[in-house]
């Protein structure tokens, strides 16, 4: 049982990461990762929707005919996103002013439909909720990483305006790495997003290959000693 949970956690965070392994959700990714703070906001909002949608899809999975599952999932997810959007707008308006843009973008996030289809519809509610949480956190990690790279190269800061998203207590996160930086516009614009994603993807591949190579050669090396 514990092994299964560990598998889900590792899949979500690294091995089957939404961005770095599944290459999903690139549209909202390129749009919002011009800064690390934006990436964090989008990631957290997506995580909340992923947990909810996975839980609901998993709990009604026996009722749904395979033939009509896609429209049912889409209707469910679109409703969820709209509900989150409306309640944030009404009861957490300050947060909504920062996240509002991202919430509408979650509807075009194919990762959510992807998890409903490939995981939540085949597993029990607890596993599905955990998968949603881990996939969401993995996505958040990827967004913050890409946003951070673009922000450092593009404007010389990190986590600028974090206090708008997380409250004044988190103002300490805001750092200016290069003072009087003139800015490198290319990294802020969408092409910079593609470059950052591409380079990070290559880095992950190299890292995974090295790890695999070490794992396969290590026992041999041990026996030779």
């Amino acid at each position: 049982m514990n092994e299964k949970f560990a598998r889900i956690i590792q899949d979500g965070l690294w091995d089957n990461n939404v961005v770095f392994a599944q290459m999903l959700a690139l549209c909202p990714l390129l749009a919002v990762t011009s800064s690390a703070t934006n990436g964090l906001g989008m990631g957290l909002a997506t995580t909340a929707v992923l947990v909810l949608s996975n839980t609901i899809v998993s709990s009604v999975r026996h009722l749904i005919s395979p033939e009509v599952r896609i429209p049912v999932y889409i209707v469910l997810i679109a409703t969820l996103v709209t509900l989150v959007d409306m309640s944030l707008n009404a009861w957490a308006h300050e947060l909504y002013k920062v996240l509002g843009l991202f919430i509408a973008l979650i509807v075009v996030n194919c990762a959510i439909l992807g998890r409903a289809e490939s995981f939540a519809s085949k597993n029990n509610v607890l596993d599905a909720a955990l998968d949603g949480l881990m996939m969401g956190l993995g996505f958040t990690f990827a967004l913050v990483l890409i946003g951070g790279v673009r922000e450092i190269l593009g404007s010389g800061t990190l986590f600028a305006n974090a206090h708008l998203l997380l409250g004044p207590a988190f103002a300490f996160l805001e750092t200016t790495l290069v003072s009087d930086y003139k800015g490198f516009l290319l990294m802020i614009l969408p092409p910079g997003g593609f470059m950052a994603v591409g380079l990070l993807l290559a880095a992950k591949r190299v890292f995974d290959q090295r790890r695999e190579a070490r794992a396969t050669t290590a026992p041999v090396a041990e026996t030779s000693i």
Partner: protein
Amino acid sequence: MKLEQLRTKLGYQGLLLGGAALLTSAALSFASRATEADIRAAEEADLKQSLAQVLPGKYDNELLKDTVELAETGGVVTAYRARRAGKVEAVVYRVIGYGYAGAITCVMGVSREGKILGVRVIKHAETPGLGDKIEPAKSDWIHGFDNKSLTEPAPARWAVKKDGGDFDQFAGATITPRAVVKAVKGGLDLFERQKSQLLDESPTPGAQP
């Protein structure tokens, strides 16, 4: 399994789709009713806040309820009037400029003498890092309009420096400041044209204390 057989029937699938649509729309309409009032209140507070930024000083009327509708060629402009003891001291309205990436919506406050009290950009899609210096958080350029009027500087100098005017452009972005300057100038022209209606002091329903 009875459910397994049922799931393959066309009627069940139709009912399932209909049921899902019905349930979700019910949830949405319920949520929409539950949040409607709070959303409107929050949006009003937002508007009030952006109006207050371009209206320094104290006013004793309910700004959001004291409005005039001005018929302009591009449509109707809603102006909010700030009064002290019944006298209209300043008016606030929205002006729109067209920059590099579409509309730039600004609010501007103008005193009864025709002087600018303040200008704020409330919505734009200009290039981050270049055109977004029109936001007060990024640069104090927008404060350069304070205390300007149609006579100060002269109408011909209401342009960016590159075009022979008085206002700075930004390095790498001329279209954005040019659009804002043009929109603010247009706002002052509107004030001149509609002065009588804007400063009309007959009480509006629900506005007077």
